[in-house]
């Protein structure tokens, strides 16, 4: 076996089957008249009422301790919930970030007060998070963060701009990375994370239209916005290590290869029961790759379940997953001639995913950054 990384041949425990059935009947009911083109948005679909229902079912904060509103279930059970939601194209965008990374981050680095006050409401599907990492002059180079948190009486004054914050226009809170020291000794020093209530005066959220015409991400401007001392997350100056851990959560899930699952479903429907030889071969290859990515993703869930750090393995799955989901709309486009512009479900789903597919290798860490992490894992950096 290779020595660089580990993808243990885990399979999901048989006990997850009942949960899977429960989710499927829930989704059958909830999404009975939910159109294909909306399903194609997968985790960009935003519906707070749907998230609340998931909270009621105990499907948010699944692995967290009960004392913080969690359900102490396994990483495998959580994995099943995630993949069933994505396969169905359920509108999970509202709670996705809080459940995936903000909650786990607070659980690990937050104060007792922060955990008690915030986590149960995330798990109930009542409050929603966005991410505050990138800035106009700080994208892949996160250490170049400029937005400043200046110490003041009883808290911090924030000035600067965060960019590409998905869902910020609807979210209640942001976990943001700010600069708390101007000239730190090390390049990765002087950064700190804060829990920011987006209703705070001095914060302006402006949606940014993407090339498909949709508004998912935002610019968030801070002008003397006050954040109390109680809302510093973790250690002052420890932001770099914390944000690295947060990104590992962000990269660990099945959404990194399942963005096109609704398209694959519609493609199979459109091709019908009698594919020509070329269609069948390509479909077979797509299914093989999808199945393999799923196996790899389950291995990552197994590492989370065992309390191991899957940062390298998650980066590998995300890089390979993005290659798959980014190529799929174009492969599909070549498989069927004469698809009408917008008429059928298939055409609508295809048109949407062709347009949003460039983001698959940008969001959550660009392809180049991920490959840099993998190269480090290979001992090259």
């Amino acid at each position, binding site marked *: *076996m*290779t020595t*660089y*990384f580990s*993808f243990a*041949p885990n*399979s*999901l425990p*048989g006990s*997850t*089957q009942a949960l*899977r059935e429960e989710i499927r009947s829930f989704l059958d009911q909830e999404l009975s008249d939910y159109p294909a083109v909306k399903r194609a948005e997968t985790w960009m679909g935003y519906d707070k009422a749907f998230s609340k229902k998931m909270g009621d079912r105990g499907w948010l904060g699944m692995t967290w301790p009960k004392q913080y509103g969690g359900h102490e279930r396994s990483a495998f059970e959580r994995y099943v919930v995630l*993949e069933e939601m994505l*396969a169905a194209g359920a509108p999970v965008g509202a709670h996705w970030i809080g459940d995936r990374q903000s909650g786990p981050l607070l659980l690990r680095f937050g104060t007792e007060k922060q955990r008690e006050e915030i986590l149960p409401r995330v798990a109930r599907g009542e409050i929603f998070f966005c991410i505050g990492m990138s800035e106009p002059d700080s994208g892949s180079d996160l250490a170049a963060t400029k937005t400043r948190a200046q110490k003041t009486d009883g808290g911090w004054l924030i000035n600067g701009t965060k960019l590409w914050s998905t869902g910020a226009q609807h979210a209640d809170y942001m976990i943001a990375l700010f600069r708390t020291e101007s000239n730190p000794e090390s390049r990765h020093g002087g950064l700190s994370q804060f829990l920011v209530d987006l209703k705070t005066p001095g914060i302006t959220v402006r949606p940014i239209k993407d090339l498909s015409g949709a508004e998912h991400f935002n610019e968030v401007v801070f002008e003397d916005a006050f954040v109390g001392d109680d809302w510093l997350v973790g250690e002052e100056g420890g932001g770099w290590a914390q944000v690295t851990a947060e990104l590992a959560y962000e990269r660990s899930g099945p959404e990194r290869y399942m963005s096109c*699952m609704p398209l*694959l*479903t*519609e493609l*199979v*429907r459109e*091709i*019908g*029961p*009698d*594919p020509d*030889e070329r*269609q*069948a*071969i*390509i*479909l*077979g*290859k797509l*299914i*093989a*790759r*999808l*199945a*393999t*990515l*799923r*196996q*790899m993703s389950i*291995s990552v869930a197994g590492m989370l379940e065992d309390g191991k750090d899957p940062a390298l*393995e998650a980066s*590998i799955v995300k*890089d*390979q997953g993005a*290659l798959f989901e980014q190529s799929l709309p174009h492969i599909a486009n070549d498989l069927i001639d004469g698809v009408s512009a917008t008429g059928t479900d298939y055409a609508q789903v295809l048109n949407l995913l062709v347009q949003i597919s460039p983001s698959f290798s940008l969001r959550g860490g660009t392809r*180049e950054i*991920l*490959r*840099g992490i*993998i*190269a480090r*894992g*290979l*001992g*090259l*950096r």
Partner: protein
Amino acid sequence: MDEISRLLQETVTKLFSEAVTPELIRNFEDGQFPEELWAQVQELGLLDVLVADDDSTWTSAYEVLFALGRWSVPIPLAETMAARRLLRDAGEEIPEGIITLAYADDYATKVLTGVPWARMADYVIVQTGTGDETQIRLMPIGEANVSNKTNIALEYRDDVDISVAPGRPVRKANRGPTALEAGALVRSVQIAGALDGMLHEAVTYAQDRTQFGKPIGKFQAIQQQLAVLAGRVAAVGRAAQTAAAAADGDDPVIDIAIAKIEASDSVSETTSIAHQVHGAIGFTYEHHLHFLTRRAWAWRNEFGATHHWALPLGRNAAQRGAENLWSDLTGGV
């Protein structure tokens, strides 16, 4: 990893990494079969890895098959291991000696082509047809005419004229892989091993080779390529492991198809990257990289190339339809 797998892995890694030197493989390519190594393998009981006792598994045998690919081991171990298991699964007596595997679409086939190691084998298990059409025969090779041929890695892949030696029918096992599926599984795991070898070779080379005043592995252009290679190595290894575990169950055909598609379909990209990183030296006969890459190029076509396995997988998915796509994919949990 369980204890048996760990022991096997240690044993074969030690044996092959020390014994299978570039010189041994070059000698093999010059016509000198590694008799001493083959004797050691038999002494260690490796031919019986899949039949040693009732608990012998493909899951454990994976470690042996992977090492055979990782170290480019030029002996008929993979085929014999698999063949012995197939006979046991079918409730047949297992004869002594080297047993190989062959497949033909049609029972009327007169000449089997590309039969691994046939010139030195004692028996061949011949599968004709798939699905309900499957027929299995066991044939003593001594009765057939064998013409020596090789694959592009110069491994023995002989033509066997069976018109005078039809052999005898053997039972079909009611669980586990067929001969064709076992062959595809074996090659998938060997490819996984070979790709892993390429990754190790390429990373090591990138760390050692200096240009423009620093190791080329420090350049992002090289790092980015090696990251892609690592991703494919991880994927092919995971798919092959899943297929091996499935072979211990009742019906492994889909997982084996997935593994062989992933393995065969990844060979082009991975061998390209391994060679690109090595530059011209990797293109010489003197350097040992090609022992891995030439095997990968050969193995991707053996026991079914990508399209052989992708076609029925795609047809089946289309027939099952959109409604069953996801539930079928998750059916094996």
